[in-house]
């Protein structure tokens, strides 16, 4: 076993030492964690997010929104699911059946598998992979071929245009996203997300977004790049209802469309969770460290507080994503590409250099550490 893999399954085996749980092999725990996270976090999130998005849209536009199914319409997503499941299953006869079937699989796998390396709490990681950030970057790239193949297989002009736009957009924005992860790696010296989050404690660097002025800019680049990678407004050109009907998923009906929609929302969640982990301190609680101050708390409660802080920050970002949808107009394709290559990529490169210079000048201290060092009279004490 590698030393620095704070594995969900491993901590489970530690907690259950001496009971019959301990005899359960590690791959069973890995399977259980996969089932729990996908079926109890990822997919329900995708379902409920569709309802929440409609409700937020209604609030922002001074409408009521879904209000028929259950109190405040909260069972709307269940009704939608039943509707989608019972819809006619349609494969375009002129299209390509094999590719049409395989495309949603690539999209769902690409978005769900990102959850593996996301630390929900200090020890609650399905697998804190050593190259965690890079792993998420890698596994989410298989979404783009999925969308492109699905759009081609539809044999529909709207679909093809949407798919091409989507693929070009995802690969373009991959660059600013990757470049704005580099400052974090410079700061933390690790690709492991658990380690990166751990360094963002109140008595350490605090949140990376406040580490130095350059990471502050970098945070916005990562977030906006994430919006573009998940095809969200203002970068929803692949779906652009007013020009491409429904874009790359025009010919996908019923549950096939539902899987695309789910995949998109799960991808949004993964993106927001990644931003949270890298820049907003993940499960860290601002201004205090639980295990140092309230050591008397049971470990289960600490884990619960950590998870709720992580999810809280992530959902806040998801809310911003939804809020933007009803605030900003859509970009044009040339503006989209111009923003990426002429705006975000140069600024992201500048941020890398800036962060490196800051690290060099202040011996790796964050802004807060530098300021508190000044007040405590002379030089970095850390």
């Amino acid at each position, binding site marked *: *076993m*590698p030393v*620095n893999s704070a594995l969900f399954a491993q901590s489970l085996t530690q907690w259950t030492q001496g009971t019959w749980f301990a005899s359960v*092999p590690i*791959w069973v725990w890995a399977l259980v964690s996969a089932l729990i996270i996908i079926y109890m976090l990822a997919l329900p999130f995708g379902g409920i997010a569709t309802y929440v998005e409609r409700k937020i849209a209604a609030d922002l536009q001074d409408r009521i929104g879904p209000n028929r199914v259950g109190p405040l319409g909260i069972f709307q997503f269940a009704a939608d699911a039943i509707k989608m499941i019972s819809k006619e299953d349609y494969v375009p006869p002129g299209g*390509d059946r*094999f*590719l049409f079937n*395989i495309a949603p699989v690539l999209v769902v796998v690409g978005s769900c598998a990102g959850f593996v390396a996301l630390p929900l709490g200090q020890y609650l990681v399905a697998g804190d*992979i*050593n*190259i965690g950030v*890079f*792993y998420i*970057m*890698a*596994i989410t*790239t*298989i979404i*783009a*071929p999925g969308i*492109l*193949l699905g759009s*081609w297989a539809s044999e529909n002009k709207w679909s*093809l245009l949407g798919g*091409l736009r989507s*693929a070009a957009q995802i*690969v373009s924005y*991959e660059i600013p996203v990757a470049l704005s992860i580099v400052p974090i790696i410079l700061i933390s010296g690790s*690709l492991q997300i658990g380690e990166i989050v751990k360094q963002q404690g109140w008595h350490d660097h605090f949140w990376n977004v406040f580490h130095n002025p350059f990471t502050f800019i970098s945070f916005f680049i990562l977030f906006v790049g994430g919006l573009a990678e998940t095809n969200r407004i203002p970068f929803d050109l692949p779906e652009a209802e007013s020009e491409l009907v429904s874009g790359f998923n025009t010919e996908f009906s019923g549950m096939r469309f539902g899987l695309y929609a789910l995949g998109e929302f799960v991808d949004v969640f993964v993106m927001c969770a990644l931003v949270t982990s890298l820049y907003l301190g993940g499960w860290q609680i601002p201004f205090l460290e639980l295990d140092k101050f309230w050591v008397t708390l049971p470990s289960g409660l600490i884990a619960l507080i950590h998870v709720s802080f992580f999810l809280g920050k992530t959902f806040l970002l998801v809310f911003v994503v939804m809020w933007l949808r009803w605030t900003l107009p859509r970009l044009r394709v040339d503006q989209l590409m111009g923003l990426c290559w002429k705006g975000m990529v140069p600024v992201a490169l500048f941020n890398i250099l800036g962060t490196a210079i800051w690290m060099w000048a202040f011996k790796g201290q964050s802004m807060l550490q530098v300021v508190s060092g000044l007040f405590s009279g002379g030089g970095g004490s850390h």
Partner: protein
Amino acid sequence: MTNGMKWILLIAELLTVGSALIVAINPNILYSAVFLLFSFLGIAVMYLFAGADFLAGVQVVVYVGGVTILILFAIMLTQWLYRLKLKDIGSKFVVPGVVLALGLVPFLHRGLTQLGKMVQAAPPEKMAEFAASPKTAMIGKALLTNYVLPFEAVTILLLGALVGAVWLARPKA
């Protein structure tokens, strides 16, 4: 390696080789591109088993996310390729292809036996320890000590590749 891991490795090997076979013999070139994607993924898993985790990530990011998209774009740009049956033009390459493949066998055999000797010479517990150790830092250290010049040379090479590629794709007057 536990039994379960052996199964995963077997699945990855079958995925790689099977997909590669389909890439070679499937008449539909778009399917070939799709199975090339799966073959790339299988190779990434094999890198993982070899302990090269960072390389596996690079494999997926560059080949699955980049090269596959590029190949798909290329096939879709020349859309008549989709209808083309490769069998029709491929049959005359079968004999030279087989000869070439057989010619490669001695080299592969030599390489594999050398590798086998190296593996047998190394103590197994040391191998396991190496396989479990993080490689990113190792690669980083190597790039900063022994391989500084190759690293910079590669960067300049990539710059040249960028200039050349956009020059080729630029519409000519």
